[in-house]
């Protein structure tokens, strides 16, 4: 049994003009201690998938179908209080803006100590010791002396370190990190990625790492899911997906990324842009932009099928290629 199982997840937004289908039949698993990268362009549904897992979908958004199981137990239909207990204790969260996770009115020492005490049996003194230890571990110099500082007294990079300490303090099984380094400078970004990787290895924590940056995924993830228009286009071991992508979207995406040392005059160009939710084409949602499109793609929606070492949702890789 995998640590996290997401099965046929469907997220909808009821609107006046009808229901928008934002996540459409998404399934994947995360093993214990594994880093699953989730990449895709903005609006692909990465954050909504993450929010569904940590139970932070904002109404009117709702899980309309499917299941999410952590260690075999469903967490998608829990009452609010139960969910809050699990979030923090079993699932930690890190967001792009560290200030969404920190309370500006409390010192960082207070916030960490409180969180530890809510989720463990530690005494005040034990929680304090653990706070200092965690802050040191995430690279806050002279942690003991910074306990009394407020979030605004830290730089963006330092704040994100504090948030990582906060996410780790109850020893969760899984951390959902949504664009944790996007707002940071490149040198700080590299530091935070290295830190996340090391901590999760040391603590055997699994990570769902959401980002639009394929480079971050290549450096960090064990497996990667490529999302497009609310679905998974391709999922597989990171090396396979990066070096030998199978889905035409992944192939285009990899060619579109400028790489140092790759001397080419033009980047691969995928024409157009991702469709809006109001306007998702029938059949394969990538069909208006796909260089390999054929008849079947306009009528039937491809499901994920294993193809070599990855799994891709594309009719080119279906067992029987012709027909309709």
């Amino acid at each position, binding site marked *: 049994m995998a640590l996290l199982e997401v099965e046929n997840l469907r997220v909808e937004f009821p609107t006046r003009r009808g229901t928008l289908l934002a996540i459409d039949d998404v399934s994947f698993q995360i093993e214990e201690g594994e880093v699953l990268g989730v990449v895709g362009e903005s609006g692909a549904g990465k954050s909504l998938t993450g929010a569904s897992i940590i139970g932070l979908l904002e109404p009117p958004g709702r899980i309309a179908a499917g299941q999410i199981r952590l260690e075999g137990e469903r967490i998608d239909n829990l009452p609010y209080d139960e969910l809050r207990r699990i979030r923090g204790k079993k699932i930690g969260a890190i967001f792009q803006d560290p200030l969404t996770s920190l309370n500006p009115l409390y010192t960082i020492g207070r916030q960490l100590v409180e969180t530890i005490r809510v989720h463990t049996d530690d005494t005040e003194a034990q929680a304090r010791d653990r706070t200092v230890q965690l802050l040191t571990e995430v690279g806050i110099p002279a942690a003991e002396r910074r306990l009394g500082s407020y979030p605004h007294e830290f730089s963006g990079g330092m704040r994100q370190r504090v948030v990582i300490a906060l996410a780790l303090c109850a020893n969760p099984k899984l951390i959902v990190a949504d664009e944790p380094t996007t707002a940071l400078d490149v040198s700080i970004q590299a530091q935070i*990625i290295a830190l996340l990787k090391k901590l999760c290895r040391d603590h055997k924590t699994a990570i769902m790492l959401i980002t639009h940056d394929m480079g971050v995924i290549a450096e960090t993830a064990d497996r990667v899911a490529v999302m497009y228009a609310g679905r998974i286009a391709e999922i597989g071991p990171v090396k396979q997906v990066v070096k030998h992508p199978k889905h035409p979207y992944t192939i285009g995406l990899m060619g579109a990324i400028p790489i140092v040392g790759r001397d080419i005059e033009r980047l691969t160009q995928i024409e157009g*842009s991702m469709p809006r939710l109001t306007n998702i084409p029938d059949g394969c949602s990538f069909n208006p932009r796909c260089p390999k499109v054929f008849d079947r793609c306009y009528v039937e929606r491809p499901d994920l099928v294993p193809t070599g070492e990855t799994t891709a949702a594309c009719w080119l890789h279906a067992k029987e290629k012709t027909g309709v």
Partner: protein
Amino acid sequence: MSDRLIATSPEPALLELENLSKYFDVSKSLLNRTIERLPKQILKAVDGVSFSIKPGQTFSLVGESGCGKSTVAKLVVGLHKPTGGQIRFDGTNVADAKSIAQNAALRRRWQMIFQDPYASLNPRWRVHDIIAEPMRVFGLAGSSTELSKRVSELLEQVGLSAMDGEKYPHEFSGGQRQRVSIARALSSNPEFLVCDEPTSALDVSVQAQILNLMKDLQRDIGLTYLFISHNLAVVYHVADMIGVMYLGRMCEIATPQDLFRNPRHPYTRLLIDTIPDLEMTGKAREPVAGEVPNPINPPSGCSFHPRCPLANDRCKSEIPKPIHSATGMVACHAAEEGRLPAPQTVAPA
């Protein structure tokens, strides 16, 4: 050691910056200062920057947030007044162009493209009028049929359709809006475009479209670019020359090949070390510790010294002077003293 070296090289530069500086007074108000007995605070956003761009080439500025890239861009297009130094465009010191007519004649030869294509386009105007505006401002409009014809041409040149002129900015995607800004920038027939993070707000597939378009335009109409980005891979792809900035100063100038194969400035080496390894060679990276210090009270001497593995006493007290070579520049004592280790990082391929 003279900054003239670049200036006197055979092919004349289109743009030359010499010892350019921009200081901002970021002190509290005089009253508060007097009450709290605070000194005046000066932020040196750009401090003695020199470089030049040849016609038809792309010069890229890279560096982390706050290093002064956008300030250089704004100085170049005249949105800021320099504290010191010169900006020469096609041989004329821009600050010296006294008469309004002389100024306008110069000014219409360059245009700027910003990071956020939405904020820079007037939401209440139709795209047609947005694109036509620079032509009207510079009196290039002609009759309204001529104007419409030119706008249609421009729209097609940037990969949109002539009919898109009737739409408003909100009806376009981010990438299409950036195409509109490019069409607008091109409408006054400039030779030189200053592009400040033009693709940073865009998805990679759309970024590829815009970068390809910019390269096509350069090839077809010989545009010269000052292209600012914090993304080293993007810069490698577009630039003929790259300048690396840190806390308002230029660390190193080199061609992309030299910069990535043989980086000389320790800060350049740090930056290159942060590039995620998409080739998946599995090489181990040791991210450099520390963060960019507060620009209001930057470290003495070489402002990179607190983070530099090669720093010595001289670095703490003396600002390194630029050392020019045939193709570039580096400002570092270790480079000058010949105690620079061979670069650890070699660009893949």
